């Protein structure tokens, strides 16, 4: 699979590809609200697992799974390790001592380095938030034709210019990846050294200029193409795409669910500030246990 193919939504299950762009964007937006609202580690874990299940259902290719795995692992374990070491809130319980406070120069400099129990959980919560959104974002990216998203944005009466620029940004991801791959290949071939010739890191400092030049050329071509086709004319994008009622129903249900969760969370937070109502006790219980 080429670098460009990696970032394009071409090989997903048909049902996922055929979903309306509006459905995908609404689900993505509501999911983002949920991951911000929920603090309970187990509930966030469930949300994260749902995104992985959606990838399975969408038949994400093995190659893409591998890329997804690397990105998720870096985010998750990076967050957990950093919080485990530098967790600053109280209460914190040291599980292991990495550097004793009186262990020579390093000990004096750092004041001791510990792995904190609460930090691991806190890092897991933050990591799960970003991992869930990354996983779902990649799912939308890998299963959507940019035109789908463009039509969805225009259907919501977003200015065609802004909608086009938003979608172009997504469209440019695979293009940018492919261009980068080509530049690196060219640099590798031109390298006069045989040792470490294929190493990517060696060539990274030199890819900015050729990549920028290529992007500018492509942007100019794109601008000419858009103007010549009359893309922004009033009637150019009137082809309405039917939004299936089942998808609408799903979006409404999910919106109601998210509204209930957010209201419950707000009422619980208010109760902690003194705005407590006994009739909402069940809601407070539910929020404390699951949100």
């Amino acid at each position, binding site marked *: 699979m080429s670098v460009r193919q990696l970032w394009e939504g071409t090989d997903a299950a048909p049902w996922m590809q055929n979903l309306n762009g509006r459905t995908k964007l609404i689900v993505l937006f509501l999911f983002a609200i949920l991951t911000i609202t929920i603090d309970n580690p187990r509930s966030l874990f469930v949300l994260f697992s749902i995104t992985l299940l959606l990838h399975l259902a969408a038949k994400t290719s093995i190659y893409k799974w591998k890329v997804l*795995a690397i990105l998720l692992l870096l985010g998750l374990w990076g967050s957990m390790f950093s919080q485990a070491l530098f967790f600053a809130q109280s209460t914190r319980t040291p599980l292991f001592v990495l550097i004793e406070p009186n262990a020579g120069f390093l000990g004096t400099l750092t004041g001791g380095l510990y792995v904190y129990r609460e930090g691991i959980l806190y890092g897991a919560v933050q990591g799960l938030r970003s991992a869930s959104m990354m996983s779902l974002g990649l799912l939308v990216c890998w299963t959507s034709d940019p035109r789908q998203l463009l039509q969805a944005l225009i259907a919501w009466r977003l200015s065609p210019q802004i909608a086009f620029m938003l979608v172009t940004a997504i469209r440019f991801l695979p293009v940018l990846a492919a261009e980068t791959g080509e530049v690196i290949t060219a640099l590798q071939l031109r390298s006069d050294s045989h040792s470490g010739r294929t190493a990517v890191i060696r060539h990274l400092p030199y890819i900015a200029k050729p990549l920028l030049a290529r992007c500018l050329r492509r942007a100019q071509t794109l601008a000419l193409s858009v103007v010549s086709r009359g893309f922004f004319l009033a009637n150019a994008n009137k082809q309405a795409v039917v939004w299936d009622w089942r998808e609408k129903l799903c979006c409404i249900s999910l919106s109601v669910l998210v509204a209930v969760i957010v209201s419950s969370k707000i009422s619980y937070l208010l109760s902690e500030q*003194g705005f407590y109502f*006994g009739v909402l*006790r069940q809601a407070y219980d539910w929020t404390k246990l699951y949100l």
Partner: protein
Amino acid sequence: MNKLKGWLALVILAVSWCALYWITGSRTPWNQFNTGSNEQGVSAYLGDIPVINYDRMGFTKAVVRYIKAENGWLVGTERGELFLFNNEGRVLWKRSLGIGKLISVCISNDTKTAYIGEASPEGNLYAINVKSGDIIWQHKASDFVGTEASLRSHPSIVHIAVDKEDNVFANCYRFKMTKDGTRSYSAKMLAIEKSGKLLWEYPAHETIDCWINWCDVNDNNGKVVISTSAYDYRPDMKYRDTLYFLDKKTGTKVNSVWVPPVPPFENTVVRSSPNYSKDGRFLAASCSDGRGMLFDSVGNLLWTRFVSVPANVDNTWINASGRDGFVTDYGVTFTTINTFNRENWQLPTPLEHPSNNSIFLFGLDGEFKYQFKAEGTMEELAFADNLVACAVGRNVRTHNYAAHGMLLIDLKDGKEKLFHHTEGPCQAIDISADGSKVAAVEAPVLTPQGKILGAYRLHIWDTGLGGKGND
């Protein structure tokens, strides 16, 4: 090799998923090694509070009461938060009552309403629906004794008692110290109906110029008793008597009793007593100077016993202040706290007073039965038939941190039934009516060595002594 690397990433993702399932659940790796959880009962964290020096006089407070109607525990904290926990330590509800510290509590006879007193700029007295956590009514102590925020003179509801009709009797006071060091006191006794309507206030048109820390009410004799406990004793003070007896229906004074002080003290201070017997015939009072007294219902002294005699050692007066006084089915109980230097609370003492940190039992005729000595201050007592649960707190003389915990004593013979150690000192305690469960609040402390001991948390223990098991 590259293929293997790709698959390795997938395998690590799968392992990470399993690890996250473990970490985000209750079966976390660190809990697997937490031994003795059954023996130690359950504990629940009550939030962050400032950690106070071990030797400081004013210390962290909390209130806890068993709620029979909900089979749970009502806990009020210094953070102004009120919790209802079940026996497994799960929060059934939690609410904030504002910025005040919750320092006093009393439960209605049907255990469906809790009366909570706070120390705050307003000094509110709340009636709370125990099932839902709703506020039924509230009164501000500042309306009765005033408030002066500029001098940090805030009113408090320091003690609450209820009668059989669930009328509420509450002590409210305010203490003021001006820049030149002079002290002044404003206090009042309030009686409030179950519905929240004010029945009477004592005195009706002025405030008491002394601290009133305690009160008790009895339906059989129809009286409310108040004790006074000022630091100093001045000739210009109007309310100089030790005990005031009021008619519980009208709030008019029936009698007052002045208890003469004993050297080296200048006045008699009764701070955490007196309490009536169930039938209202007797009244037990414990004085700070170390005396335990039994009165009849209108304040006639029946007998006095020194549970801790002030002693002069190396030109230093030391004593173990008396605190609690209760009349139980098994006798009259008094307690003493740490040993203190008469000159200054925080000055060292040459030795520990032999009667400090103890619980004493006397017969109704004044006959001494036994003394049980703990290693730290008995901060609060809670009774369930023949069992008495004691919150054992600090010992500022010996710094014996192993003393902290919950102590269960059999009142019949003064023998220890159970002890559960807590890392920090135990500050509040209650026991279920059948004696099967005990809950206590532990507070964090900063030792002179700079180490923090314990945390602000609730402990619930199963005593295994419920019902007939008491015998």
